[in-house]
């Protein structure tokens, strides 16, 4: 289902990451030879139990950390440091509390040379896009957690990144808000089709959002299962949850998580 002719947007090539364990005084292997590619416009969920290194993968792609060996390539260029070509949405909104909502979104363009007026005009556009035009002059602490996360999404998106990196962005929200945010994200993603790498430990979230799920095993982190999903778009949560295929996919994913890479082996 991925066109083999077009080059991938993102490629991870045998990425290994060791952390120095200062307590035990020896190295911990966090990621062991991770390789996968993401096609242009693809929505991929990276799924795994906590501690499996899925956030480390995202941090490497974002350029916050460097791999011990191997490399991540965005449009063929090795990732060396953070940049506006990758928009990052974190688990916490991490907005700047001293700036208004509008100026939070305008921050990126302004730091990259846009005039204040131009940056604010673009920010307004994206605030309207995430449905928060009326809150432009508010401060982050005046907004709910879900609304702040929508601002964070606008802030990541306003610089026209080549891809969006999302690190459990809805993990801190209550179940009701989380579902709303998932539906909201799909709705706006279907308009833009930006390439997305979305890290989560929530199987239902991954099944609802993704074109493809990559399951990671824990300690050391390896790719345990690479599973394309066939649900059509636009998706409705009630429709796909009653699809028999949904149950089968969920079972395969759960199996892969429990048996650390056993998804492709007979039992």
């Amino acid at each position, binding site marked *: 289902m991925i066109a083999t002719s077009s080059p991938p947007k993102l490629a991870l090539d045998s990425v290994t990451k060791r952390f120095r364990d200062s307590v035990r005084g020896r190295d911990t292997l966090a990621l062991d030879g991770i390789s996968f590619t993401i096609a242009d416009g693809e929505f991929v969920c990276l799924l795994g139990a906590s501690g499996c290194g899925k956030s480390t993968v995202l941090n490497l792609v*974002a350029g916050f950390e460097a791999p011990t060996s191997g490399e991540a390539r965005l449009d063929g260029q090795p990732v060396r440091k953070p940049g506006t070509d990758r928009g990052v949405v974190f688990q916490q909104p991490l907005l700047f509390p001293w700036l208004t909502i509008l100026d939070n979104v305008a921050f990126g363009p302004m*730091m990259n040379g846009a005039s204040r007026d131009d940056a604010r005009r673009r920010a307004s556009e994206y605030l309207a896009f995430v449905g928060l035009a009326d809150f432009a002059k508010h*401060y982050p602490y005046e907004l709910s957690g879900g609304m702040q996360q929508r601002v964070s999404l606008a802030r990541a998106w306003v610089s026209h990144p080549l891809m969006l990196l999302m690190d459990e962005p809805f993990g801190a929200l209550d179940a009701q808000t989380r579902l709303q945010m998932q539906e909201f994200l799909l709705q706006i993603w279907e308009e833009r089709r930006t390439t997305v790498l979305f890290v989560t430990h929530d199987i239902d979230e991954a099944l609802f959002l993704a074109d493809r799920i990559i399951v990671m095993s824990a300690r050391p982190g390896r790719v345990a299962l690479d599973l394309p999903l066939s649900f059509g778009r636009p998706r409705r949560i009630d429709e796909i949850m009653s699809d028999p295929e949904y149950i089968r996919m969920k079972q395969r994913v759960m199996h892969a998580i429990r048996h650390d890479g056993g998804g492709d082996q007979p039992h």
Partner: protein
Amino acid sequence: MQPASRPFISVLAVGTALSLWWIVGHWRLADPVLLPGPEEVALTGYDLVTEGYRGVSLFGHLAVSVARALAAFALAVITGIPLGIAMGMSPTLNAVFDPFVQFLRPLPKLALIPLVVVWFGIGEFSKVLLIYLATFLTVVVAATAAVMSVPEGRLRAARSLGVNQLQLFRYVILPSALPELFTGVRVGIGIGWTTLIAAEMIASTSGLGWMVMNASAYLRTDVVMLGVLMLGVTGYLLDFGLVSAQRRWVHWMGKA
């Protein structure tokens, strides 16, 4: 407790304390030399405003002390915040300066008076220096901590938005540190103000701190109490001014 009832309770508590003081003074329940009543202190205050104390009017003493303190505070903030920020940003600078800061900070500044006098004489410079040292050391420590406590996640968010190192410092680290910087300056100025008496023990002829010390030698308890009240009220007003500025400029403090 209703939020609105807080100031009311405070006013009531202060009013009660003043009334007790007035009762003790008015009915001569204590020796007036030991505890002069509010009426006597007020009369003394009127005397000192019109006649002055040892040749300087009461407001003259106040002005001298406030001028010394403000000069010291201004210098402490101008020098302490940049040094503290530099120490917070650079582990090397931190390693160089931290031992000195940590050695000097807990030291009672009274102990430094003989050295300061020997090195810098008995002029205004030595007095301002003592207040400055007390304030400066507190501000440095607070500014270092403020910079080091900027959340890593916020720095990452900024980097992913494409800021360079200079922009990161100017537009993210500085505003992030601002609430704690303000608190550090408030604490530093509070400590600096308490050093005033020590500073004015150095061969002075004016100032609230000097007035209190001088009056105590002559058992002028009324002047001592007046001086103590004015020291306290001035310190309170200084802090009140800073809290107001903090509310205005760091409106997000405690909310995010």
